[in-house]
């Protein structure tokens, strides 16, 4: 009971009565004091002081001082502060109460769960929290980078160094076939947000709901886990101004080596075009970036505010790639109605102007003839011409590819305390995202323009409207602490957009700004399309928490959710969850353990299909027109996929069992857990049976998937200067238990052109022993024979030179087996340092450059990649095989920071001054010969000859390193933080 203060000291009742009597005499009084950290005596800013039994309260100022009006009858003050043990002080006559809070117990840390918070000790499901100080540092171009390697079970992969690409996020492996295999992002209570709509500097904490018992309260979309982002808010006390600035330099960390001109000509038999060009050097640069962020915050007991403005200007390592981003956020909190009503309003805008550039330049810089000159004598770009032949310098210098994104949101939350323990709240939010893409290809460009000029403009917007009401009740009944929540949520998503594309213009001046000038519009061959769709999610939900004597904990929740995307009879789904925990240390003294909690949970979550209107048969113009009655009459036909009114919720049920523990006087804390989940009625777009269907595909519930893993999180305070922590995950294979109708196995992921358009990387199968997802099925190449051709292993393992007799083997799996994140934090005097190493193990990658451009037998119009596997005797034809699938285990020094905080004189204008030096992705240890050994969780399919990558990416075939990976970058940062 050492942290509890709800048991009165002996005689407490008498004191209370005495106080009560006193309070009859004093109608109201003001109590003041200072809240400090017991360890160092420093004031705690923003600690909460509440008058027990009333809605009154206050927060401490920057020095830890508070002042609170204590009304009649109130006898106790409760002091709480994140990361510190809460204390309740029974008031005596004195009007000054100073309190020293004790830190280090983590158990009282407040953790955000869906629609509320719980103390960490009360958590019975799998929830992990990352605080701002633990985030990855440096030039963060994607908010997901902050969390990389920090949470066991959360894999964040961002292959390549493209500043405009966003991470692939997987929580506890693959749990849906749909494109929405990333966790649901909830920012300040708004589900379904874009993680990158906020500035990284604004984030206070990130809570990750990992198991079904935690995320079931979000019902839909909870099945890939939930990431809850809480932004920083203003706090009462002195106003504060802070500034952070950063300058960064990016250089190529890893690239694919290729033959130089003379070797290309002599070994590969390439044409000698007379020049000697290092195409990789020609398309890359040192990326120079800068970031500035300023924020103002402050407030009084009744009103607090926070505002942030930030600017980042980032250049990538590919010439002409980068972005400029402006963020502005503002939050105001206001108390009213004798502090019973709490109103908060948040607004934010984010404007990003991106030069997407052309990742294709890396592809063609790798394979373009190294003896080709950049330009002809007359100044025009030298083009070899033909399939897959584009001068990479011409691609980036002649053409532009820009994107402008705007997100803005506004929300209002009102919370009314009706009586002690019971509150009602309402929340409305509107978030908008508007994206504009503008591409222009010069009239002199071969790439995508065919030397006639091509403009393409695209705009897509989305809107997310949310209305939510909740009721919260909490009460203590003796040793039983009871909390209950009930709520209703209505959310509507609206998507619309258009695209114009036209070619044929005599000048390069217009870009997308004068579409009327393009010949294709007159000719009728321009493309113009638009779309609009929406969908609604409605839910009723409730949750109860029981905490008996801080020893036994039970949480139960139920969400009934409906989605407009299903047919009439299948709209609603029920998502229950229950979890429980026992603080074993409360029941018996367990040797060495300061605390030990066993917990277990079960929960059901769901997924909706990625498109609307799937249950309805639709017609629309098909784009063609047949010759009817003497003229071309637009054809209207069946549109989209075959209607499936029987499509129903995909559900995932999972169990989670874990221990939370603290040892060595809380110096060593951690948790160990096991999970297993089964996804049923997987929603997937399958090839339809023809006959009788009209469309080629149907969205259907097609199968069953199983996933499991073990997670370990440890944190150890070695001494007062060094803390080390580890997040480790073991993933068991992802297994397909059932697949639709009669399909036992089916091939997916076409290798591509040239020459391998009917080869597939992987087989999705439910055959016994072959039902693991992510296996590469490849022809088993034994070695290069003396004649330079491949020698294969046949099915029996014997060698054969006949490809038709060659066996196919499982050449590796694209899904990682282990992931480790190891953080070390050091402080010494004014110095601080952080070293973060990350390792992902057990996965393989198909190195596609090698599958097309390594052997010397064919494809000699393109340069060859010169990895450790290059063999001048290899005269085989290029093809995907067991040779081109490589293990991609890696250990990366992901992040290293050294900082110095200046000791400031008391009369300084500054309150804080810190400088730091940071390096990101400093080195990578790996045997993988491609650019980036990071896992690839999704695949966009093959792209060739300058065509565009598919926008819908499949999670079914992980591990394919396609030929368009942006090279990885090493980033060095110099930063400052000032407080005023």
């Amino acid at each position, binding site marked *: 009971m050492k942290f509890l203060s709800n048991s009165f000291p002996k005689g407490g009742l008498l004191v209370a009565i005495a106080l009560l009597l006193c309070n009859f005499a004093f109608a109201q009084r003001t109590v003041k004091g200072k809240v400090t950290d017991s360890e160092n005596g420093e004031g705690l800013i923003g600690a909460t002081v509440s008058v027990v039994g009333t809605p009154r309260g206050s927060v401490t100022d920057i020095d830890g001082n508070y002042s609170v009006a204590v009304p009649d009858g109130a006898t106790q003050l409760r002091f709480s502060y994140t990361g510190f043990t809460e204390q309740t002080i029974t008031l005596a006559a004195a009007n000054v109460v100073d309190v020293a809070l004790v830190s280090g117990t983590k158990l009282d840390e407040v953790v955000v769960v869906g629609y509320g918070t719980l103390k960490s000790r009360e958590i019975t499901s799998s929830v992990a929290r990352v605080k701002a100080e633990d985030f990855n540092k440096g030039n963060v171009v994607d908010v997901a980078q902050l969390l990389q390697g920090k949470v066991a079970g959360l894999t964040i992969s961002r292959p390549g160094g493209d500043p405009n690409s966003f991470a692939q996020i997987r929580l506890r492996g693959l749990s849906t076939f749909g494109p929405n295999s990333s966790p649901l992002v909830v920012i300040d209570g708004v589900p379904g947000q874009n993680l990158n709509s906020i500035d990284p500097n604004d984030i206070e904490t990130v809570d990750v709901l990992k198991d079904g018992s935690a995320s079931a309260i979000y019902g839909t979309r909870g099945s890939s886990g939930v990431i809850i982002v809480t932004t920083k808010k203003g706090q009462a006390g002195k106003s504060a101004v802070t500034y952070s600035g950063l300058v960064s330099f990016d250089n190529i960390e890893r690239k694919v080596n290729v033959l130089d001109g003379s070797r290309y000509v002599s070994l590969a038999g390439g044409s000698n075009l007379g020049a000697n060009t290092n195409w990789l050097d020609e398309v890359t640069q040192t990326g120079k970036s800068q970031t500035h962020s300023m924020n103002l915050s402050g407030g009084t007991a009744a009103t607090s505010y926070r505002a942030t403005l930030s600017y980042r200007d980032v250049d990538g390592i590919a010439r002409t790639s980068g972005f400029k981003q402006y963020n502005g956020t503002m939050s105001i909190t206001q108390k009213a109605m004798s502090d019973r009503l709490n109103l908060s309003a948040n607004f934010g805008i984010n404007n990003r102007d991106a030069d997407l550039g052309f990742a294709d330049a890396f592809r063609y810089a790798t394979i373009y003839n190294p003896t080709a000159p950049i330009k002809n004598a007359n100044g025009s770009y030298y083009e070899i*011409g033909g399939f897959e032949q584009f001068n990479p310098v011409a691609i980036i210098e002649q053409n532009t590819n820009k994107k402008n994104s705007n997100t803005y949101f506004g929300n209002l939350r009102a919370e009314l305390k009706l009586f002690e323990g019971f509150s009602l709240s309402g929340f409305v939010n509107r978030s908008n995202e508007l994206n504009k893409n503008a591409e222009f290809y010069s009239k002199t460009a071969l790439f995508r323009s065919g030397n006639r000029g091509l403009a393409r403009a695209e705009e897509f917007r989305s809107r997310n409207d949310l209305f939510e009401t909740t009721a919260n009740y909490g009460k203590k009944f003796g040793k039983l602490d009871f909390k209950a929540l009930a709520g209703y949520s209505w959310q509507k998503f609206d998507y619309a957009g258009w695209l114009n594309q036209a070619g044929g213009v005599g000048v390069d001046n217009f870009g997308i700004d004068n579409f009327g000038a393009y010949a294709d519009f007159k000719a009728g061959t321009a493309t113009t399309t638009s779309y609009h769709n929406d969908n609604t999610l409605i839910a009723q939900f409730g949750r109860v928490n029981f905490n008996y004597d801080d020893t036994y904990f039970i949480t139960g929740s139920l969400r009934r959710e409906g989605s407009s995307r299903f047919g009439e009879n299948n709209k609603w789904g029920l998502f229950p969850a229950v979890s429980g925990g026992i603080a074993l240390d409360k029941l018996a003294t367990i040797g060495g353990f300061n605390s030990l909690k066993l917990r277990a949970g079960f929960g059901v979550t769901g997924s909706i299909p990625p498109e609307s209107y799937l249950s309805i048969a639709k017609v629309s113009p098909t784009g063609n027109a047949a010759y009817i009655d003497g003229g071309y009459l637009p054809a209207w036909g069946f549109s989209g996929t075959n209607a499936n009114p029987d499509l129903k919720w995909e559900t995932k049920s999972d169990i989670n069992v874990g221990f939370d523990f603290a040892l060595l006087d809380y110096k060593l804390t951690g948790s160990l857990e096991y999970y297993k989940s089964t996804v049923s009625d997987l929603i997937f777009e399958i090839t339809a049976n023809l006959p*009788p269907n*009209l469309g080629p595909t149907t969205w259907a519930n097609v199968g069953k998937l199983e996933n499991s893993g073990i997670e370990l999180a440890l944190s150890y305070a070695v001494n007062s200067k060094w803390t080390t922590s580890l997040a480790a995950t073991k993933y068991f294979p992802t297994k397909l238990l059932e697949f639709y109708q009669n399909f036992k196995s089916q091939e997916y992921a076409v290798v591509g052109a040239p020459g391998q358009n009917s080869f597939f990387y992987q087989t999705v199968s439910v055959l016994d022993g072959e039902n693991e997802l992510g296996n590469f099925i490849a022809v088993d190449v034994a070695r290069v024979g003396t004649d330079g051709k491949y020698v294969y292993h046949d099915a029996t393992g014997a060698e054969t030179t006949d490809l038709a007799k060659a066996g196919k083997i499982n050449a590796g799996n694209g899904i990682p087996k282990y992931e480790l994140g190891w953080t070390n934090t050091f402080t010494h005097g004014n110095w601080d340092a952080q070293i973060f190493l990350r390792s992902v193990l057990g996965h393989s990658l198909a190195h596609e450059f090698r599958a097309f451009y390594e052997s010397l037998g064919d494809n000699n119009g393109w340069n060859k990649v010169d990895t450790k596997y290059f063999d001048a005797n290899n005269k085989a034809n290029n093809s995907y095989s067991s040779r081109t699938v490589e293990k991609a285990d890696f250990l990366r020094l992901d992040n290293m920071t050294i900082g110095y905080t200046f000791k400031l004189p008391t009369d300084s204008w500054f309150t804080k001054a810190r400088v730091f030096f940071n390096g990101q992705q400093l080195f990578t240890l790996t045997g993988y010969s491609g650019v980036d050994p990071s896992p690839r969780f999704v695949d966009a399919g093959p792209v060739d000859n300058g065509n565009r990558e598919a926008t819908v990416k499949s999670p079914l075939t992980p591990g394919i390193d396609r030929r368009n990976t942006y090279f990885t970058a090493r980033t060095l940062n110099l930063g400052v933080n000032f407080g005023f």
Partner: protein
Amino acid sequence: MKNKFFFGKFLVAIVAICLLPLNSCTNLDETLYDKVPESNYFRDEAEVKSGVSQVYATLFGLNNHGGYFSTQEVNSNEVLYPQRGGDWEDGRQWLKTYQHVQDGSEDCFRGSWNWLFTGVANANWAIYNIGAASDKGNIDAAKGAGFVAEMRGLRALYYYWLLDTYGNVPIVDNYIQPAGFLPTSNTRAEVYAFVEKELTEISGSLSRDVGGANYARFNYYCAQFLLSKLYLNAQVYKGAAEWDKASAAANEIISSGKYSLNATYRDNFVTNNSGSKENILAVPYDKVFAQGFNLPQMTLHYESQKTFNLEAQPWNGVCTAQDFYNSVDAADARKVNFIAGPQFASDGVTGLVDPQVEAADPDGPGLNFTPEVNALFPNCLRQAGARIGKYEIALGSTPNLSNDAQVFRYADALLVKAEADARKAGDWSNAGTVALVNQVRTRSGMPAFTTLDADAFLKERSAELFYEGWRRSDLIRFGKFGEPTILRPTASGANKQLWPIPKTQINSNPNLGQNDGY
């Protein structure tokens, strides 16, 4: 119970909460913005016509790269997609199709099946919806019946192609089916009977107008042409000859006087060939409205872009088989079907050069289409093979030609009657046959026949109907389909005359049977 009190309050709170957004509390209806629910369409004649237009528009896939037409042509060994080094390996689908060693896993057999049955499904969809519109009075019943007859005609055309290639396929003639319906294979004879019944039944309801508003529509003469083809191949399809019926059906067209041969062979294939009198059924391709005819992309070399100032670079794919090229007499005007020899830019004088030419090419880099195709795979030279010049390629063409593609041509109707009469008479040199053949032959500057035999007749058909999709069934009917060719030196068995049912369909529909030999 002590707790009743607050649970009660809770309930009140929940009810209050739910009442707030009154009208939308549990409303999950869907609103369509950019499409129309099918149940809400076909409200008047214009909307019905737009649906009819869609069924015709499914034909636009006919001459698109890699589809049914390409598979027919390659399988007949008239043309081929050789593997040119790293290019056009395409999973060996073309190699296997050419060699008659396909197994049903190839993209082209899957794609052909899907396209043909998509045509059937679209026709069923239109037939159902036109019927429903007629029943509701949204369209004049007689007009509705006319449209339905046309749609049944197009469906019969798709089924004729299915009969000819896959043979034993399921007959599905109704759009509305129970959930999860998986059709069962019918025999080739049953499919034959279905096509015959459909064409016979609708003949009376089809228009006999030709050209103008009825151009490129499935009229009475289309039904007769298709019947003539059905009967001509009846021996193959159902094991019993129908020479009389074939001759009679073709004669319906000839004796109508509504069609005639164009002055020159080339007139049939020029860019502006719409409304040709020789044309019984055409796909009225247009670079804007009716896209999909991309022959120049499929056949021409990358550098040929400069010959025709094409908007997009061609793909250096399909070319003519050497033996077929040589079978057409040099003096025959129909040699215009092939593009061979040195190639020039659009100025006609600047020779084109292929910078990536193989060291092994004896001609060197100067672009020269040699009729000789050195290999089917793996290292066919980039410049090997006469290209397909059957249709005029207008200067500055986009990847979508505006030429109308021939499906049923009057010259073929003459040859069908000539053949049926000869086979019925047991005499290739009977006067009627020779006269009909000479009508076609002499137009192209070839001397008239006085006598004929089966080989000469087949050779005449070949020259006239190259790349019109008939070669495969002609060879089968003349018993020559399996005979070796230069690049397929091994004869193929009779059971390769039918195509394999695609594996994807066999796997997902247990009610489908596979053809013998696969």
